[in-house]
């Protein structure tokens, strides 16, 4: 087993009697792009919530770059380098587009508390750097001209893009995208997918992608994990998944 990237083994959680995720395994080497698919209610978002620490797993272990992150708090896991976006957009609505991105950069501790109050030289320099970096990321995501707008005033597609920009601003090593293309039209979807492949190299991150659109996820993922009723029913390359009878059964039912 290599010690780089994200490794998740045998992660399980149940709510009451319902076993939401059982024995979830995942190996996400640096710079890889993997897909996580499954019918509604299969446990995809729950798996994300487990990895990001929103839920504490009942059992199982997680390591990032060889260090254990099992049972850590969400903010600690985020600072370790795992960042996600949300299926139902969760921006800082009343803050400007640029501020949304700047908030995300806070975890890199740009300057001390008093520096901001006293407006030291260090504060001025670092704040300028932050803003420049934030603007660069916004431009990359095609939001360069919207930076001073309140984020809730953005269109749905732009809000989705801002979520990704905000996640990238944290300089993650692993990026979890929870249905980033949900609600987008087909042209926007294609653009977004191209962007996601680009992100991987430009920002040097490993990406785990949840989506319903099979055609799209098959198109860009190197490797796919299929969940159904909380359990992994198949893993493999897109070609292997497409012809896997279990997957076809889960999606279409038995003929």
């Amino acid at each position: 087993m290599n010690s780089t990237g994200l490794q998740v083994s045998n992660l399980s959680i149940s709510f009451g009697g319902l076993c939401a995720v059982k024995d979830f395994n995942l190996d996400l080497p640096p710079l890889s792009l993997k897909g996580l698919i499954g019918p509604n209610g299969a446990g995809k978002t729950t798996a994300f919530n487990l990895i990001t620490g929103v839920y504490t797993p009942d059992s199982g272990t997680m390591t990032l770059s060889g260090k254990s992150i099992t049972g850590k708090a969400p903010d600690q896991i985020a600072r370790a380098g795992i960042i996600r976006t949300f299926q139902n957009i969760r921006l800082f609505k009343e803050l400007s587009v640029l501020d949304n991105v700047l908030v995300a950069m806070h975890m890199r501790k740009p300057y001390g508390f008093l520096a901001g109050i006293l407006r030291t030289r260090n504060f001025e320099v670092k704040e300028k750097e932050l803003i420049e970096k934030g603007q660069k990321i916004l431009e990359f995501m095609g939001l360069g001209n919207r930076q001073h707008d309140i984020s809730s005033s953005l269109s749905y597609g732009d809000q989705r893009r801002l979520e990704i920009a905000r996640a990238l601003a944290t300089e993650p090593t692993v990026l979890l995208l929870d249905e980033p293309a949900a609600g987008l039209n087909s042209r926007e979807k294609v653009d977004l997918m191209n962007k996601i492949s680009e992100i991987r190299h430009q920002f040097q991150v490993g990406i785990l992608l949840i989506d319903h659109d099979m055609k799209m996820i098959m198109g860009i993922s190197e490797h796919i994990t299929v969940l159904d009723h909380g359990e992994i029913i198949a893993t493999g390359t897109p070609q292997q998944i497409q012809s896997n009878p279990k997957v076809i059964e889960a999606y279409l039912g038995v003929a």
Partner: protein
Amino acid sequence: MSLRHMILYIGSITLIFLVGLIIQDQLNPYILRVIINTGIAIILSLSLNLVNGCAGQFSLGHAGFMGVGAYVSAALTTRLFPDSLFQTIPGTGLAIILGGIAAGVAGYLVGLPSLRLKGDYLAIVTLGFGEIIRIVFLNIPFIGGAVGLAGIPLSANFFWVYFWVFVTFLFLFRLIRSSHGRAILAIREDELAAELMGIPTAKYKVIAFVLSSFFAGIAGGLFAHYQGFIDPNSFSFIRSVEIVIMVVLGGMGSLSGAFAGAIIVTVLPELLRVFNSYRLVIFPLLLIVTMIWKPSGLFGFREIWNFFKRAPKTS
């Protein structure tokens, strides 16, 4: 800090000093009293605004922290060290700062366990703590108990009150425009999302609470050394509600709103004196009207200077 800023700040403080010098003797004492009370109210609403407006946590016990500041500073100047350096102007200044620090410590002790709660639950817990603090004062004979503490040196005047208004404003203004302040704002917007962006939300909520309590303590110290007399009823639940009204009326999260709210809540009852007891009806009525037509408060999240800038495009 640039030279331009330095000049601006020294200029502002000099201006406050000069205005104080002039109006101290020239102005009708009643009006002067209203102006100074307004200053104290501004510090209170600015400080509560950090917790209720910026961090989005609903605290209902602000008067308790004001009381800690008032009692600690007054105990220092009147009971613990009478006839000492604390009787002088700088000594009182020090006592007021120590009162603020004591209030900050109280804020830490209250905030640490209770900020795990959200919404209504936090409001109830802070309300409870506010009352506990008041009842503790009520039962300590050393600081006067129910009779109150009299004979506090009258060393707070227009200058000192507005000096602290300036300091509080500048501190909060800069805080909100720093990375740490943005972290606090993010908690208000979406606590879970903030946490998943790596912000230790519990820590920042406590920081906001402690700073807020500190400035409330300062306001309490100024209040004590301006009135010359304090009793536990000066820091009752009603006072807490009054401060909450200032913040809500002015606009949650807006510094200019905190100013506007404090001025309205302090000055309006004075202007309405002609209506005698009816003013107690008019005032809540105003609050209801605001909540119906402008529920985000007079300023909402915006600041007064935003209104002079070009409105953001919403294409």
